[in-house]
C-alpha cells in the first residue's frame, strides 16, 4: 500500500486519541520511575499537533510530519518533546520530495527516526527508553515487504513490555538505577500507542 496525506493526518489524530485516553496511565508510569508528567506532556503535545494540522491544507506527507515535529518540539516540554519531535522531523526529511510514499520509503524513514532518537538522546538499545520500542520495530519493518498490521502490533507490544525488566540508564529514571526495574518505561508505552495508532490507520487498506 501507499501512504497518503490522509493516512498521515489520520495517524496523528489516532495517536492523539490514544494519548488522551491513556493520559493517566502514562502519568502513573512516569510517576513510578520519572517525574510524573509524561501523560501531561504527550496529551498537550499531540493535542497541539492535531490543532495545528487541522488548520492546514497539505499536499504531501512530508509537510504534515514537519508541522507535527515543530509542534511537538515546542509544546511537549519534557524529554519526549525533542525526541518525538526528532522522530517526525527525520521522517519528514526522509520522505521529502517523494511523490509516492510506499512501504519501502516509510520503512527507511523509520530507520532515520531511530537514528534521530539515538543521536538526540545519546541513547542505545537496552537503556529502558522509547528507543527499545522504536529500534526493534524499525528493524522488523525492514525485513518485510509491506505493512503488516499484526506484526506492528505484536512487535510494539512485546518490546514495550520488555522494558519492564530493564534498568534505566538514560533520562530521569536513571537516577533510580536498580529501582527502575519492574516498571514499563513511559516513553516505551507511549511509543506503543504510536504504533497501535499506525496499525489502526492502515487497517482499512490491507
Amino acid at each position, binding site marked *: 500500500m501507499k501512504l497518503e496525506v490522509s493516512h498521515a493526518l489520520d495517524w496523528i489524530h489516532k495517536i492523539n486519541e490514544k494519548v488522551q485516553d491513556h493520559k493517566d496511565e502514562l502519568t502513573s508510569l512516569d510517576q513510578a520511575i520519572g517525574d510524573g508528567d509524561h501523560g501531561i506532556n504527550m496529551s498537550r503535545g499531540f493535542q497541539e499537533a492535531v490543532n495545528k494540522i487541522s488548520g492546514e491544507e497539505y499536499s504531501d506527507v512530508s509537510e504534515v510530519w514537519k508541522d507535527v515535529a515543530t509542534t511537538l*518540539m515546542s509544546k511537549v*516540554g*519534557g524529554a519526549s*518533546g525533542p525526541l518525538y519531535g526528532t522522530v517526525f522531523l527525520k521522517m519528514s526529511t526522509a520522505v521529502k520530495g517523494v511523490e509516492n510514499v510506499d512501504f519501502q520509503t516509510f520503512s527507511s524513514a523509520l530507520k532515520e527516526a531511530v537514528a534521530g532518537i539515538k543521536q*538526540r538522546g545519546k541513547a542505545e538499545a537496552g537503556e529502558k527508553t522509547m528507543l527499545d520500542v522504536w529500534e526493534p520495530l524499525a528493524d522488523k519493518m525492514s525485513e518485510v515487504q509491506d505493512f503488516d498490521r499484526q506484526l506492528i502490533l505484536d512487535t510494539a507490544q512485546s518490546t514495550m513490555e520488555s522494558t519492564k525488566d530493564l534498568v534505566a540508564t538514560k*533520562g530521569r529514571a536513571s537516577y533510580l538505577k536498580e529501582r527502575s526495574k519492574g516498571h514499563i518505561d513511559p516513553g516505551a508505552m507511549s511509543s506503543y500507542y504510536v504504533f497501535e495508532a499506525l496499525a489502526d490507520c492502515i487497517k482499512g487498506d490491507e
Partner: protein
Amino acid sequence: MEHVGIVLVSHSEKAAAGICEILQQVVGEIPVEAAGGLEGGEIGTNFERIQTAIENIHNEKGTIVFYDIGSAQMNAEMAIETLGFENVHLASAPILEGAYLAAVESSVGKSVEEIFVSLNKEFN
C-alpha cells in the same frame, strides 16, 4: 566592546530568572537571557523560548548556553542546531555555578574559548 552572551535553560521559569538576576547583580552589563519553564509557569523546557533567548543576545563574541537537567539539554541542542548561528555552544557545567563563572569572565572580555577552558578546569 561586545561580550559573550549567556543563555540559561532551566525547567523552571523562576529558577532561570533567579539565576539570571544573580549574574546581573555581579556583572551588570553582559548579555544574559533566561529561557525557563513552559507557558503558564509549568515545569519543562520550551524549544521556542530557547531559540528566542539565543536570538535576543547572540552577537559576534558568541553565546554559551547552560541547561539544567534531562530534556533541557536535548531542547537546547535542537534550538542551537535549528538556528544554525555560528559560535553558539552548549556547556555541560552546573547551570548556576557554571553560568556565574562564565558571566564573570565574559564581563572582563574573555572569549568563548577562554571561558570553556575555565569551565573545564573548574567542573570537569
